[in-house]
């Protein structure tokens, strides 16, 4: 027998994501889903951002990895609201992971929540977690063709970060190609060039973050720098 269904395959995930979004919105928390390849500098970016934001803004972190507590241990040096999620064989975070993590956090002590997704440019993009914005992160050592090869992330991201720009003299990377491909896929998201280890571009990133936080969390007059 044939049964007509016509139902969103990820409906359950989307429903849990909507619950997360409601809880986080009520708590006044601005939430970023950070998506990028392994080694592009996601953890280093969050560490550096925490140090810039605190104590004016209190940061929480949910960090997803297939295994180990290492990233959470790194973050815990800078803030106390950190939850590590080990996905085992899962290549991305799903809304239920975040839902469980939120149950282990004191939301009254968080203004900005980073969800550092599993290092992966494809799978995490398709799963709503309840975030306000998706941050797409690339690094110059990955090559200039990554936006063209991963259009889903570029199209969905509210901002594109290009990290490790201090390595530009040493790696083959055509900035024009990178920027042109990003623009063809997404003509609204700002592209911010940074070097987390050198502290370059961080002011532009923090300014964007502060602006978005005002938009989403309704914060008034809070400086991020």
């Amino acid at each position: 027998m044939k049964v007509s269904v016509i139902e969103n395959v990820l409906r359950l995930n989307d429903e849990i994501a909507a619950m997360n979004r409601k809880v986080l919105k009520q708590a006044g928390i601005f939430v970023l889903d950070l998506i990028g390849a392994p080694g592009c500098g996601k953890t280093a970016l969050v560490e550096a951002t925490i140090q810039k934001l605190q104590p004016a803004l209190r940061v929480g972190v949910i960090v997803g990895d297939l295994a180990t507590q290492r990233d959470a241990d790194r973050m815990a040096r800078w803030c106390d609201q950190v939850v590590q999620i080990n996905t085992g064989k899962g290549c991305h975070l799903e809304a239920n992971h975040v839902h469980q993590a939120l149950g282990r956090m004191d939301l009254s002590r968080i203004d900005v929540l980073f969800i550092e997704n599993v290092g992966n440019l494809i799978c995490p993009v398709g799963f709503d977690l309840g975030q306000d914005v998706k941050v797409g992160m690339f690094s110059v050592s990955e090559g200039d063709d990554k936006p063209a090869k991963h259009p889903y992330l570029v199209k969905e991201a509210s901002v594109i970060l290009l990290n490790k720009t201090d390595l530009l003299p040493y790696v083959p990377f055509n900035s024009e190609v990178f920027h042109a491909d990003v623009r063809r896929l997404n003509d609204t998201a700002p592209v911010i060039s940074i070097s987390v280890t050198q502290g370059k571009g961080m002011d532009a990133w923090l300014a964007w973050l502060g602006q978005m936080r005002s938009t989403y969390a309704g914060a008034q007059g809070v400086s991020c720098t």
Partner: protein
Amino acid sequence: MHEFSLATAILDLARRHVPAGAVLRAVRVRAGPLRAIDPEAMRWAWTATLDGQPESGATIELDLLPWKLSCGDCGRTWQGEDVLAACACGSKNVNADGDDDLTLMSIEAETIDE
């Protein structure tokens, strides 16, 4: 291999629509281009997901939607798989439109003889 997690989600949803006393034999899924589904990888992931399950052997049919492309210079519109394709007129000013639709369209189930 995001196809694996999608295969699991498809199976979970399909099972909820199988009538009592029947077993799943086929699913039909529609996906937008943003989902970046590779059909070979999807079929392999589907087969592997069903391995050892009562539904083992059920087939998956995919309707993969193309990008809707439109040239910002000559106005031509067409459909294709390459999101960064140039227009036949030579222009690279091409807008690609496509969504992340992922819909279970139908299932087929077979009544099990007791």
